[in-house]
């Protein structure tokens, strides 16, 4: 009965979404308060129904109800409970349910927290949000129903992709979806603003917390994904410029640009149509990512359920959402009221000038990733030639564009609005500049003289951290620490955190030591300052897998230092092997071991990596998201209830 309840709740949610997607929209254009009030009720009802439906599906997984086809295909009674639950969204139907649930929850949040929004704007936002939901609910109900029954019910399920049975991946999709789907709210706000024909300071303030929340979750989602590929793929790397990874990076870059351009709207009442465009693009790139990952038009090193038929639906959806948004943009954006002309009247050297530079560079980065990702597809179709665009392309294009971005990042916060002088700002960064140069020189001399570029990048990392800190200390000295808005504190944290990520990635990529060696039992091999000894390889029985576990002792100066125990797991149901890396970290470096294939002569391929500063990559990313959350807690966003009637441009600092 539970699956039927879930199914019916989903159908009801579909009906509610249709009502929510139409009536409040009509109400907003007619000024009918009753129709507009319907939006909030409908949004809450819809979220409740989808929550109920999703709960029913989770319940089917928890009790291993093998009369449900989806559970049979993706679960198994021998699976640990945690992975039974996370298995709910580890497949196509379930992940669509999770996507829709998050979409509805965001809609409900707008209904709850949007009390300060004008009625017309809130109704329109909720309607657009519901229309997106209608598309997804229709997709689930008509093509990917997770509640389909199977009769007779088999005795046990077919299990779950063993690679997905991992805590890192269990929570990666929800985070990523919170990010992707979070941008649906900014999209809805943009569409509502275009329908109203009004983008102003208040709008920018309202849309900011939603952008920030989506951005924070996306940051965490990408970091989790990268961490997962670091320890599960066993290649010692953390980013492979794979289409699946690029798909999540593009909306992040657009979202980051949006966060910054919205500040210009808020403070200077300018750059409006550009900001609206970015709000549409951030969500469109999220959908594009979903399309690329699910449709199978590109090959990826990450295994993923791909199906061209579903690809057609997602493409149609992408065309309606993005195409509709951009068509509305082409029609309405030229009519937006501009105080200083459509592109503003800016001094190149000013805070807004710096933010525009930031936007130009971030968008260039996003386009670079887009071109690199889609080029193989275009070329294949046009000429039939198959190419793979790999790290060399991105190292030659993406990385150099980061340099001016990082260089300008520390200077921007020193510039005042409207008109600023570059000289004083640079003077205050003089010490930081010398420290960064020193760091680069030390890195080049002391660590690795050949990796010049890595040394320069290392200097940039130091520049970002110290530069952000200097700006913060300068503010605090002027006695503004008490009154300093949380958004400023958040900015400093996120900017400095970017430096931490840069240091971690550069050190890991350029200065790691590695040993790949076929070792026999008892054999030792030198590994950097350590000596690695393969002590034993023993069989192991897990809940739903069998494994070989190696014990590798690392000794330093003849004394045992640490023991690493990498495994090779064979998942019995799927006959699939997965390597389980063993990582020992002290936050300054990772000692990382994987166990490869055994050969016929009793040797095992052992890979050992010493990755300096590797934990900083994810630590920095988490810190970056933390900065976003701190900014989100700013009281101006919580109680700032800006009233449209008396809002003028904020006095620019």
């Amino acid at each position, binding site marked *: 009965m539970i699956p039927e309840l879930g199914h019916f709740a989903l159908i009801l949610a579909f009906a509610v979404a249709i009502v929510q997607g139409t009536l409040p929209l009509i109400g907003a254009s007619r000024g009918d308060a009753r129709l507009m009030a319907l939006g909030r009720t409908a949004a809450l009802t819809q979220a409740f129904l989808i929550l109920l439906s999703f709960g029913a599906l989770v319940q089917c997984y928890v009790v291993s109800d093998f009369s449900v086809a989806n559970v049979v295909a993706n679960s198994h009674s021998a699976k640990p409970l945690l992975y039974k639950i996370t298995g709910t969204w580890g497949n196509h139907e379930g992940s669509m349910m999770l996507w829709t649930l998050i979409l509805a929850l965001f809609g409900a949040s707008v209904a709850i927290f949007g009390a300060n929004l004008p009625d017309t704007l809130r109704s329109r936002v909720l309607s657009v949000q519901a229309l997106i939901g209608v598309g997804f609910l229709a997709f689930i109900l008509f093509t990917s129903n997770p509640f389909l029954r199977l009769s007779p019910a088999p005795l046990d399920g077919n299990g779950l992709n063993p690679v997905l049975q991992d805590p890192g991946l269990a929570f990666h999709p929800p985070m990523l979806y919170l990010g992707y789907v979070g941008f649906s709210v900014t999209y809805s706000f943009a569409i509502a603003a275009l329908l109203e024909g009004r983008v102003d300071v208040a709008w920018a303030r309202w849309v900011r917390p939603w952008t920030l929340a989506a951005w924070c979750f996306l940051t965490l989602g990408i970091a989790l994904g990268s961490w997962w590929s670091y320890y599960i793929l066993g290649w010692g790397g953390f980013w492979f410029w794979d289409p699946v990874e690029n798909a999540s990076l593009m909306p992040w870059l657009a979202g980051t640009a949006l966060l910054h351009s919205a500040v210009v709207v808020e403070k200077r009442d300018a750059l409006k149509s550009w900001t609206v465009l970015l709000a549409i693009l951030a969500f469109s790139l999220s959908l594009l990512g979903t399309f690329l990952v699910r449709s199978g038009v590109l090959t990826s*090193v990450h295994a993923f359920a791909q199906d061209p038929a579903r690809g057609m639906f997602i493409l149609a959806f992408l065309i309606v959402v993005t195409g509709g948004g*951009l068509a509305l943009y082409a029609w309405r954006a030229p009519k937006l009221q501009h105080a200083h002309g*459509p592109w503003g009247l800016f001094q190149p050297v000013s805070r807004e000038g710096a933010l525009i530079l930031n936007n130009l560079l971030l968008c260039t980065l996003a386009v670079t990733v887009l071109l690199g990702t*889609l080029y193989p597809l275009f070329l294949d*179709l046009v000429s039939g030639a198959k190419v*793979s665009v790999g*790290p060399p392309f991105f190292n030659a294009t993406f990385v150099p564009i980061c340099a001016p971005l990082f260089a300008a990042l520390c200077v921007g916060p020193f510039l005042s609005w409207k008109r600023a002088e570059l000289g004083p700002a640079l003077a205050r960064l003089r010490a930081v500049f010398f420290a960064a140069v020193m760091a680069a020189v030390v890195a080049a001399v002391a660590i690795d003289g050949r990796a010049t570029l890595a040394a320069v990048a290392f200097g940039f990392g130091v520049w970002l951290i110290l530069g952000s800190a200097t700006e913060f200390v300068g503010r605090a000295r002027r006695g503004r620490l008490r009154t300093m808005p949380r958004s400023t504190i958040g900015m400093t944290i996120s900017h400095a955190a970017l430096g931490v990520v840069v240091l971690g990635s550069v050190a890991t990529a350029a200065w790691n030591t590695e040993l790949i060696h076929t070792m026999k039992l008892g054999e030792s091999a030198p590994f950097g300052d350590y000596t690695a000894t393969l002590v034993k390889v023993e069989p192991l029985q897990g809940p739903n897998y069998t494994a070989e576990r190696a014990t590798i002792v690392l000794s330093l100066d003849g004394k045992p230092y640490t023991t690493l125990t990498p495994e090779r797991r064979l998942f019995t149901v799927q006959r699939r092997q997965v390597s389980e890396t063993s990582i020992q970290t002290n936050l300054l470096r990772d000692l990382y071991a994987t166990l490869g294939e055994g*050969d016929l002569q009793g040797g095992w*391929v052992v890979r050992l990596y010493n990755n300096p500063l590797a934990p900083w990559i994810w630590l920095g990313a988490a810190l970056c998201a933390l900065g976003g959350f701190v900014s989100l807690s700013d009281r101006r966003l919580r109680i700032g209830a800006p009233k449209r009637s008396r809002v003028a441009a904020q006095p620019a600092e």
Partner: protein
Amino acid sequence: MNNRVLYLLPLLTLAVMAGFFGWSLLSGRDPASIGSVMVNRQAPRLAAPALREGEPALTSDLLKTGKPVLVNFFASWCTPCLAEHPLMMRLRQREGVTIVGIAWKNKPEEARAWLKKLGDPFTYAGTDYDGMLSLDWGLSGVPETYLIDAAGIVRLHYHAPITEKDLNDTILPLLRAGK
């Protein structure tokens, strides 16, 4: 007027992209499809300088030893090659398969470093730095893998990294039958 066009630009970009995506889906194209041009024909000429220093150059004789041979084109800059590398290692170490590896458009020292780092699965290794050899082989990128039977006929041609499924379902049965 110009301004108007500017505002239409995002929509036009989307239209072009969507056109490509639709075309891609409807064409029935599979980016990892198995090609058919080379299959069931005599293996092309093999002539390549050795990748590893001090070894003799690769010749077509290597393909006519009376045993099936795998020919794998790879490059150190190619991430999918990294993905299929453990399977190559397994084929060599567990199954004792003869594998001819050819570094395509790859500086020999970089290819050598890559193999040194990850392990070298190749019985014979050659280099095709200018990509001339791969023209004869109908190569379109890396990684690509050809299975050549005992009589020197191409039996399989993979345009994509081989997977565990390919290995167990197709390659190994054919190799065993070939012996």
